[in-house]
């Protein structure tokens, strides 16, 4: 069974985010590039699945990144992923959700897969649109927001998170699934894994290898960013004091009731 995990590289989420006011894009220079934290859950889900399935199951990480940042993928390899493939070319810069999904779908077809696992969204753009669009372009079942995955009798079974609980769904393979943080905390790369990761391959493919029949990058973007604005400042907080816990609890309770929150 061949599992491919899509991985995005994002600016360190712990660093302060800055927007270039002219280009209206996130400033990525001067900030460490890391694996998208949500994709680490997808990697964890894939590695768990490989451990349960055993046999000849492999996990490949697939990313659309500039060649210069591909070493960041070593962390995925150090976590235990078998190999990595990047899709890299200047023409891909500025791709929006659709262009990204289209280009990556062609790449995934070329790599081949039984199951694609995606993180729920990326920490930088936060559109969350790629997994659904990928499934559509790939023409495979797309099960999003899964909290648990199983492969039983060659079929994918997933628990799909909803606002009030979860749905139990299944789909034929090949399929695509996106996962939530409930799949399990991503493992630390072991130091042995880190030392072994340098021997694993990170292959590069270019759009020219894929026979794309439409424009990608900013030329192929269906969305246009018109303006950016900081979120409105929050109103000042109301601070109350109480003599003891029960009195304080009552004040909070009355406040929530007044706002019809409980």
């Amino acid at each position: 069974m061949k599992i491919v995990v899509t991985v995005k590289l994002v600016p360190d989420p712990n660093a302060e985010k800055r927007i270039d006011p002219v280009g209206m894009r996130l400033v990525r220079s001067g900030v460490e590039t890391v694996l998208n934290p949500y994709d680490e859950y997808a990697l964890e889900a894939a590695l768990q699945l490989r451990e349960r399935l055993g046999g000849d199951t492999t996990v490949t990480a697939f990313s659309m990144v500039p060649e210069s940042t591909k070493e960041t993928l070593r962390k995925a390899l150090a976590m235990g992923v078998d190999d990595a493939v990047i899709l890299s070319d200047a023409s891909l810069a500025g791709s929006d959700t659709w262009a990204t999904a289209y280009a990556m779908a062609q790449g995934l077809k070329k790599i081949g897969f039984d199951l694609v696992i995606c993180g729920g969204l990326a920490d930088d753009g936060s559109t969350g649109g790629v997994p659904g669009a990928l499934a559509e372009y790939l023409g495979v079942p797309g099960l999003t927001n899964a909290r648990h995955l199983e492969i039983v009798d060659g079929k994918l079974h997933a628990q799909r998170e909803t606002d009030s609980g979860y749905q139990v769904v299944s789909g034929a393979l090949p399929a695509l699934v996106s996962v939530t943080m409930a799949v399990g905390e991503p493992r630390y790369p072991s130091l042995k894994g880190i030392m072994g990761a340098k021997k694993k391959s990170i292959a590069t493919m270019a759009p020219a290898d894929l026979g794309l029949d439409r424009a990608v990058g900013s030329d192929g973007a269906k969305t246009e960013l018109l303006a950016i604005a900081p979120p409105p400042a929050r109103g000042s907080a109301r601070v109350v004091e109480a003599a003891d816990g029960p009195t304080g609890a009552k004040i909070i309770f009355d406040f929530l009731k007044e706002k019809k929150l409980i």
Partner: protein
Amino acid sequence: MTESMRVPLPDALDFLGLDAQLTDEERLVRRTVADFVADRILPRIATWFEEGILPRELAQELGALGVLGMHLHGYGCAGASAVAYGLACLELEAGDSGVRSFASVQGSLAMFAIYRFGSDEQKERYLPRMAAGELIGCFGLTEPDFGSDPSAMRTRARRAGSDWLLSGTKMWITSGGIADLAIIWAQTDDGIRGFIVESATPGFSARNIEKKLSLRASVTSELVLDECRLPADALLPEARGLSGPLACLNEARFGITWGAMGAARACYAAALEYSKTRVQFGRPISSFQLTQAKLVEMALEVNKGTLLALHLGRMKDAGTLHPSQVSFGKLNNVREALAIARSARSVLGANGVTLEYPVIRHMNNLESVLTYEGTSEVHTLILGQAITGSSAFV
């Protein structure tokens, strides 16, 4: 594009940009250990320190992470570079010196002794399980009456047929009370030799030293060896004389050179953060000259000390590092870390004495780090001898 042409302002916590001097692999090691410390150590360390405990499960967690004996090759060890090992020590000690001490004793003292001086059978038997944290090791050199002068040790092993009978007392032994095995150095008719003593051996007992105000998240013990009968294959065949244990200490001291800068960075970071939010006389105290003088002094010494550690690490990886240069690192970096911790404590005012902040915990820990693995006095004399050619030890 002025943005990319302008040299960016240095990071306050890595002012010399040393992270950029690391390889991708070294950076990933550093970040992995730092993440582990943030997730698994920092939320719990103040409680461990207060209660005077180090949970045994931590050994397996550190084993799974791969830091135990990470610079050794084979036997389940990662085979990392000296710099990568140093970075792991730095990040562990940014959590707590007790946690780093555990890893140092396990990897650089107990495992290294077997790795360097043991037989193939001893290596196969112990190292993989020690790397996994399933077996905990300790290292018995110091005695109640012999600290800086280990050559005068009283612990003695004598032949009894093909066996050995071992008697004596070892003191200030990190991990002693939780250890499954101890590397014990003893006088024999053939000079000082090393033995692997399993803690289940009749006559072996450990008494933990509870009343201490430093390295509280670390087990420190007295080991009593009362006619312990050891099989012939408990002897480390390749170690003869004091050079055996000193080679192990040299490994651990190298890690301390890095680790001390982890504790120092944590104190400096806490002081810097606190100074920016603590308002007095209507202004953050970071805007006052006296506070800035303290913070800048800390920044200078943290960055210089880390640069020194990296330099020594590169030399170690190149095979050009002399033991006296490790003394240089240990002496300077622990001394400066302690000065930084004390200064940071003063920036935090009264808050600096609480366990809500890491500073006084690091400060108290560093008092032990100053003394163990060669006191600052001993390292001074090693350096004195190295530069003058005259030994001033006696």
